[in-house]
């Protein structure tokens, strides 16, 4: 039980190797997810395509107009510590800093995180709340996919053999937008969330909500965006009552399952509580 390893020098070559290897070929970024699954016998790759030589996939860049680009091979730690990430939104830095421990964040990359497609991960709900698009290379071709469409099921993505995540692109924030990431952790601080809520809410000059994104982690087989909550917020003033009524609608959009971090019914209750708390946190200092 072992595999062949190859570290190509270009994205196009990496895609070709992945395509030729088919479903038994896997990309290796930081290694935390792949080696864990391999050690536990859950994954038996025949070929592992190492991405360590692809320097162009590392880094964080501000985009013209106020957007942000994260290279797929950038570690969680590098992202959380990058001044342009906090400059874009402190909540984005917080979501990355919420993952496991510094040691894991030094090794695990954002591209690996997304390709792993574990619905309990911290960054995906926050990135979806920021309308992130994932940049996918296939040889010389490239396509962009709204991040929410990447995730198909637990550990399953929309990537075809030969496709490689190269970056994540976040559009500029809407005017007046604020965001938060709330991770509910009843066990230990380095754990996966029992429920997590990422929210981005904008308020117009008349005090009414002009735009809302609410996305939850650990409440289904993928990150789950709650458009029922979003619709209940837009056009309304962010009073405690509006927030509570909106948060209550989250239960209809989620489909949590029992695991060691809580039963499905507990997660449904806590999803409402956490959504209300996240929205209240955003609404509280919205004096500007």
């Amino acid at each position: 039980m072992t595999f062949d390893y190859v570290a190509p020098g270009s994205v196009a070559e990496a895609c070709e190797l992945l395509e030729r290897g088919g479903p038994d070929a896997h990309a290796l970024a930081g290694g935390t997810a792949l080696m864990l699954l391999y050690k536990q016998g859950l994954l038996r790759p025949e070929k592992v395509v190492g991405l360590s030589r692809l320097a162009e996939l590392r880094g964080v860049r501000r985009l013209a107009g106020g957007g942000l680009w994260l290279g797929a091979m950038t570690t969680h730690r590098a992202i959380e510590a990058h001044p342009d990430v906090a400059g874009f939104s402190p909540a984005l830095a917080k979501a990355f800093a919420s993952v496991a421990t510094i040691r894991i964040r030094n090794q695990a990359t954002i591209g690996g995180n997304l390709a792993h497609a574990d619905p309990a991960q911290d960054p995906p709900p926050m990135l979806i709340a920021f309308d992130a698009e994932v940049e996918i290379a296939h040889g010389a071709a490239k396509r962009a996919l709204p991040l929410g469409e990447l995730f198909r099921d637990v550990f399953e993505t929309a990537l075809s053999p030969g496709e490689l995540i190269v970056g994540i692109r976040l559009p500029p924030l809407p005017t007046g937008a604020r965001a938060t990431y709330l991770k509910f952790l009843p066990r230990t601080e380095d754990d996966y969330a029992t429920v997590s809520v990422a929210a981005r809410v904008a308020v117009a000059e008349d005090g009414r909500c002009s735009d809302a994104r609410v996305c939850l982690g650990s409440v289904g087989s993928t990150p789950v965006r709650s458009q029922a909550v979003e619709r209940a917020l837009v056009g309304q003033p962010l009073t405690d009552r509006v927030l509570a009524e909106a948060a209550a609608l989250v239960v209809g959009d989620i489909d949590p399952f029992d695991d060691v971090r809580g039963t499905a019914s507990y997660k449904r209750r806590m999803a409402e509580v956490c959504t209300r708390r996240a929205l209240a946190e955003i609404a509280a200092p919205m004096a500007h």
Partner: protein
Amino acid sequence: MSTHRIRFTLNGRAVEREVPADRLLLDLLREDLTLTGTKEGCGIGVCGLCSVLVDDEVLSACLLPAVLVDGRSVVTIEGLADRPGGTALQDAFITHGGFQCGICTPGQLISASALLAASPSAEEAEVREWMKGNLCRCTGYYGILRAIAAAQPAAGQTDDL
């Protein structure tokens, strides 16, 4: 299965080895290079026993394929004394009771050494956040925090916990 010739710096010395593609850094260190100071605990990146420095960042040797340290610099507990402040940190762990059974100690020292290098005057909250990934099943955490505080350059003004 492919094998790969890797060259890296280990505790300041150049090392060259042929490794199978799936050789983990932890096994390379302990079994091939007989540096058994780095311990295996959970084997899934949670407990911190196998903490090593790669290019001055703490990583889990139990989840790191050895091929990924090609061209990089690795420091294990055996090389700690050669790091700036390494001996002082070891002394502080002894003086302040920074360990009990000792199996987590190599990882604790490696993480603490990286913390002192990255943030020499870290406040206690930052120390706790940094050391969160190194579990001590004897629960000797206060001794570890005291030892790290004492090893900070500004020690002396640091109150005992």
